[in-house]
């Protein structure tokens, strides 16, 4: 029975591929059409409707200030990306090539920064590095200084540091995962043939690794390019990226024509960058024998590797975890000095702020317990994972075939990432508030918005793994009589299983941390955790500040736990191959 169906299926395999392709494309294109192009078109049409205003906005666009902003946007993004790679690549190497105790925890910890709201991160940086932060106080005491020696906050350094803090996890996850599957025999062969370690790296490892590094670099660059909260809050009002300018023109000056033009400028920059990336990526990516991490990963045995690993871990912890730790610590310290005491650092352990989170002191209608708000966030995040993987898996599969259609569509799939969040948020508000799509009060609105941001990440996480599958493997399976679904189940799925988990982790964290669109679209009765944190921070008083820190700490714990759970997912051989 099975055999006979397989035999007939074999004849149809090729035909099916040809016929199915445009149909399969319909799914992601319909999603982008409805959730991206439709709202974006709506807001652009609205903004640029009046020719007169558009003309004066065009004139404003040639203002030297716009050029300066564009230039700053580009170079700060490039510099931030370089620094992020500098920190992330050693981490990716360690996590990709070695097995050691606490690795899963390290991976989860380095992922947490990705989701933290900027206001909270700023508080963490200040607690640590601010003029009256712990490091400065320590240095002042140790060196007997009158003034704080490290003034980083509100400088370019704060922006760069924060970008590294936020995005290193992208490099670690994408490159680390790819590195784990590189066949070690190639480098071993090179070494056996007498190549120096450096030459082996530059001639073998680096070229093989370059698709994943390029992908990570592009995603990090686009994130930095459209950076917004970090620039405003940690850089201070002196710095402005295009996204900041768009935000100001939209929300503060309500100059929609200029905002729309700036959005388009940003969009074209992203598009150009993505096309350049695709060209480069096509040149460097090649099918590989993917190996199981069990065969590629070694233990830290020699003293040298242990020392190196120790240094890498310390750098990662210092950069990515210390600011979070400072926050968590503060949430359990009494923030108020006792009467008469005016020390800068107050002491005294307390769980008051955590207890207070569960009390609705003022019988407020919009009060939610942390459990409820985490529930809201979790529901959004899970829906985002399901939606973005459901769309991303078939899409990445089709892109991996490198058809002409796929090459055309690929850069377009990346556009949501480079689109101004403010512009798109307002597009949502215009487009989804009226028939035929009245979604304003729908619980699906937020997951859809989050999926839009997560979708490019999901595709880029899946694609390197997918293109590295040798087509011969699939053909061999088909020739041997496997049905297409069986080829998918037994060849494709195990090979991309690990990448799918990475993709799921991205979708999960993106949804948990998203604030820009969420602040515009969420309902007051159902705030996500970042929105709830922001609510506490918008009123004075020690209890509010303490509760914001406490809820942030809960968010970190919850995210770390979620990451550990996702990482430990194993579908049979999936993720292990």
């Amino acid at each position: 029975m099975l055999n006979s169906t397989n035999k007939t299926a074999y004849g149809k395999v090729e035909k099916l591929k040809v016929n199915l392709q445009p149909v399969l494309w319909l799914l992601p294109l319909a999603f982008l059409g409805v959730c991206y192009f439709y709202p974006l078109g709506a807001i652009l049409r609205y903004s640029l409707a009046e020719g007169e205003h558009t003309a004066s906005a065009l004139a404003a666009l040639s203002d030297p200030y716009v050029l300066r902003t564009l230039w700053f946007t580009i170079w700060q993004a490039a510099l931030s990306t370089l620094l992020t790679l500098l920190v992330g690549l050693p981490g990716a190497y360690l996590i990709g090539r070695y097995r050691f105790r606490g690795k899963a925890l390290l991976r989860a910890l380095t992922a947490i920064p990705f989701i933290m709201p900027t206001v909270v991160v700023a508080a963490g940086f200040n607690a640590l590095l601010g003029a009256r932060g712990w490091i400065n106080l320590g240095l002042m005491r140790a060196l007997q200084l009158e003034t704080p020696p490290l003034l980083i906050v509100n400088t370019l350094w704060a922006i760069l540091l924060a970008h590294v803090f936020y995005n290193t996890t992208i490099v670690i996850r994408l490159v680390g995962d790819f590195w784990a599957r590189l066949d070690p025999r190639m480098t071993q062969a090179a070494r056996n043939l007498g190549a120096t370690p450096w030459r082996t790296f530059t001639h073998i490892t680096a070229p093989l690794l370059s698709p994943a590094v390029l992908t990570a670099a592009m995603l990090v660059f686009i994130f930095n390019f459209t950076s917004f909260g970090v620039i405003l809050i940690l850089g201070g009002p002196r710095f402005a990226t295009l996204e900041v300018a768009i935000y100001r023109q939209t929300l503060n000056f309500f100059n929609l024509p200029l905002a729309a033009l700036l959005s388009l400028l940003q969009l074209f920059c992203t598009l150009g960058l993505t096309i350049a990336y695709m060209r480069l990526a096509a040149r460097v990516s090649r099918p590989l024998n993917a190996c199981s991490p069990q065969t590629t990963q070694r233990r830290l045995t020699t003293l040298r590797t242990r020392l190196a690993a120790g240094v890498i871990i310390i750098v990662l912890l210092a950069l990515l975890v210390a600011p979070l730790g400072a926050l968590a610590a503060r949430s359990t310290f009494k923030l108020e000095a006792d009467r008469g005491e005016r020390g800068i650092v107050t002491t005294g352990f307390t769980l008051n702020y955590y207890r207070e989170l569960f009390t609705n002191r003022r019988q407020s209608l919009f009060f939610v317990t942390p459990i409820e708000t985490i529930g809201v966030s979790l529901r959004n995040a899970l829906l985002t994972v399901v939606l973005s993987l459901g769309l991303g898996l078939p899409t990445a599969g089709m892109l991996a075939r490198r058809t002409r259609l796929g090459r055309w569509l690929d850069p377009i799939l990346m556009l949501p990432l480079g689109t101004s969040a403010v512009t798109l948020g307002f597009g949502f508000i215009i487009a989804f508030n009226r028939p035929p799509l009245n979604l304003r009060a729908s619980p699906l609105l937020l997951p859809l918005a989050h999926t839009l941001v997560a979708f490019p990440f999901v595709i880029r996480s899946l694609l390197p793994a997918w293109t590295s599958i040798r087509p011969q493997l699939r053909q061999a399976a088909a020739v041997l009589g496997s049905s297409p679904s069986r080829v998918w189940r037994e060849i494709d799925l195990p090979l991309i299983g690990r990448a799918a988990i990475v993709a799921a982790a991205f979708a999960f964290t993106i949804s948990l941390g998203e604030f820009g669109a969420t602040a515009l679209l969420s309902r007051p009765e159902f705030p996500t955790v970042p929105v709830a944190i922001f609510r506490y921070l918008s009123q004075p008083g020690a209890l509010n500040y303490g509760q914001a820190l406490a809820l942030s700490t809960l968010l970190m714990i919850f995210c770390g736990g979620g990451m550990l759970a996702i990482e430990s997912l194993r579908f049979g051989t999936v993720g292990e191959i």
Partner: protein
Amino acid sequence: MKRNALHTYCVLALLLTGCGSATPIPASPRTLTVMTHDSFAVSEEVVAEFQAQHSAIVQFLAAGDAGTLVNQAILNKDVPLADVIFGIDNTLLTRALEADILEAYASPLLAEIPAQFKLDEEQRVTPVDFGDVCLNYDKAYFAEHNLALPESLEDLTAPEYSNLLVVENPASSSPGLAFLLATVGHFGPHGYLDFWVELRANGVKVVEDWETAYFTEFSGSSGKGPYPLVVSYASSPPAEVIFAEEQPEEAPTGSVIAPDTCFRQIEFVGILRATENRDLAEAWIDFMLSPTFQNDMPMQMFVFPVNPRAELPTEFIQHAQLAAQPATVEPDDITAYREEWIESWTNTMLR
């Protein structure tokens, strides 16, 4: 559209009566949608009272800050998001009025409201609450350094106050804009920039938003920053008492209420055009002006009621000080020149 809806209702009504059910169908509660900013808060029981009185459900849509709120309402003018909009303040008033998004309504309770709050003669907006944006100071710092409080805006440029003040960027922060307007009101549109030049020379710190200014930079808050003077609200000192871990006898911070140093923000409610629940919307506006709602506001939103019949909570009476003479700027001027003022300010202070 309207006719179609009517049509549907008729058909539905026919169907329902045609079914011939003997028991009368209870009228399903109507829904009143109120769009507001994300600082809006209200007690459960207060809303429950309105819902019971009018057998209606009140649904709230929170839409970013006050500026975002008004922009959203304007963007969706032809298909309104809600029946009522609450949270338009006097710095955004003319933008909303010029966009023609509101229907006039003269609440009978307006008679109780002092004239200083009624800014629209056509009554398209109704004042609900107000708050003064004032300098807050860290009491302990001023006591420790034996420093007198500034008695005017000019004082802030004196050497004894150098490097003590943190303000918000008026381009993005509503208290930041209010303080900029206070300086425009006091020095006039031609003199305010000179004042800011001097302030800059005297080491004023500019940050992006109120959260950063208050919690990160201000020394009187729990964030324990380095600056003992901050642009905040007259209601911040009572909030410091209410949200303290142990109730202190005295607030750790105070407001500077010298003449022309504060700016009064007034918040308005209005009925959005083309609402299908006009009667409920009117009832909601009356309700917002009634003592039930007005008494609830201070503790929920840290604003002051416009209705003099409302009773302030003890914490407000003890720890809040209102400005006797806030600086004023005409709402029309604010709309006409806000962009220009902010732009010039940005050029002077940040570039």
